[in-house]
C-alpha cells in the first residue's frame, strides 16, 4: 500500500518535472522516468505485457527518438535561455496549483470493484485476445508501422538537389 502511494506521488512529481523543466533534454528524461514508473504501476495492476511494452517502447524507444531529435537541433544561447526561463515561470506557475486542486478533489474517488466479475473474460489470456478476438488490430498495426517507416524515411531523406 505504501509502495503504491509512493509510486503515485513519484509519477505526479515526474510529470510535473517533465512539463516545468527548462531544458528539453531534461523534459525528455523526465518523460522516460514517468513511463518507467507507469510501467511499474501496470505490473502491479496485473498487466505485465502492457508493462513490458510501456517500459521498452515508451521509456526506451520514444526517449531515444526524443533525444536524437533534440540533439539534432541548435542549442539556445545563454541570453535566450534566461529570457525564456523568465517567461516560463509566468506561464507555468498555475500548474502546481491546478494539480494540487485536482488531487484534493479526486483523491477520495476509487476504482469501482462492484463490476468486477465476468469469469469467462478473466480466463482468456492476452495472446488469445490479440490473435483471435482483436486480429484486425494487428492488421492495423502493420499498416501503421509501415506508414510510419515510409513517413520517417521521406522526412529524414537528404535532398538530392545540387546548390
Amino acid at each position, binding site marked *: 500500500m505504501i509502495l503504491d502511494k509512493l509510486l503515485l506521488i513519484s509519477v505526479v512529481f515526474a510529470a510535473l518535472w517533465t512539463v516545468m523543466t527548462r531544458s528539453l533534454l531534461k523534459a525528455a528524461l523526465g518523460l522516460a522516468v514517468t513511463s518507467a514508473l507507469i510501467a511499474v504501476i501496470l505490473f502491479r495492476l496485473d498487466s505485465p505485457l502492457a508493462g513490458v511494452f510501456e517500459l521498452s517502447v515508451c521509456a526506451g524507444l520514444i526517449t531515444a527518438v526524443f533525444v536524437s531529435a533534440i540533439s539534432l537541433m541548435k542549442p539556445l544561447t545563454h541570453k535566450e535561455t534566461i529570457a525564456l526561463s523568465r517567461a516560463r515561470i509566468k506561464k507555468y506557475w498555475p500548474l502546481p496549483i491546478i*494539480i494540487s486542486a485536482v488531487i484534493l478533489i479526486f483523491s477520495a474517488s476509487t476504482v469501482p470493484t462492484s463490476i468486477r466479475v465476468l469469469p469467462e473474460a478473466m480466463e482468456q489470456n492476452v495472446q488469445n485476445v490479440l490473435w483471435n478476438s482483436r486480429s484486425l488490430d494487428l492488421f492495423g498495426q502493420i499498416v501503421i508501422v509501415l506508414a510510419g517507416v515510409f513517413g520517417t524515411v521521406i*522526412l529524414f531523406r537528404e535532398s538530392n538537389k545540387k546548390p
Partner: protein
Amino acid sequence: MIALIIVLFVAGLYCILVTRNLMRVLIGLELLTKAVTLLLIVAGYATGRQALAQAIVITLIMIEVVVIAVMAGVILSIFRHTGSLDASNVKNLKG
C-alpha cells in the same frame, strides 16, 4: 488512481495549451497518451478484462510510437526550414 490519471491528463493538456515550442507540444501529447494508457488498464482491472485492456494498450503504444517518430521528423524539418521550434512560425502554410 483516478486522481493520477486526471493529473497526467491535465499536465499534458496544460503543456500543449501553454507552450509554443513544438517539441514540448509533442511531450504534452505523450503525457496525454500515458493518461489514456493508465485509464484503459485501470478499466480492465476494474472489470476483470485485463487481457482485452492489454491488447488495446499494445495497439495504442504502437500508434503512439509511430505518431511520435513521424512528428519528430516533421518538427525537425520545420526547424531546418525556419531555424526555430516556435509554432507561430508555421502559421502561414503555403501549398
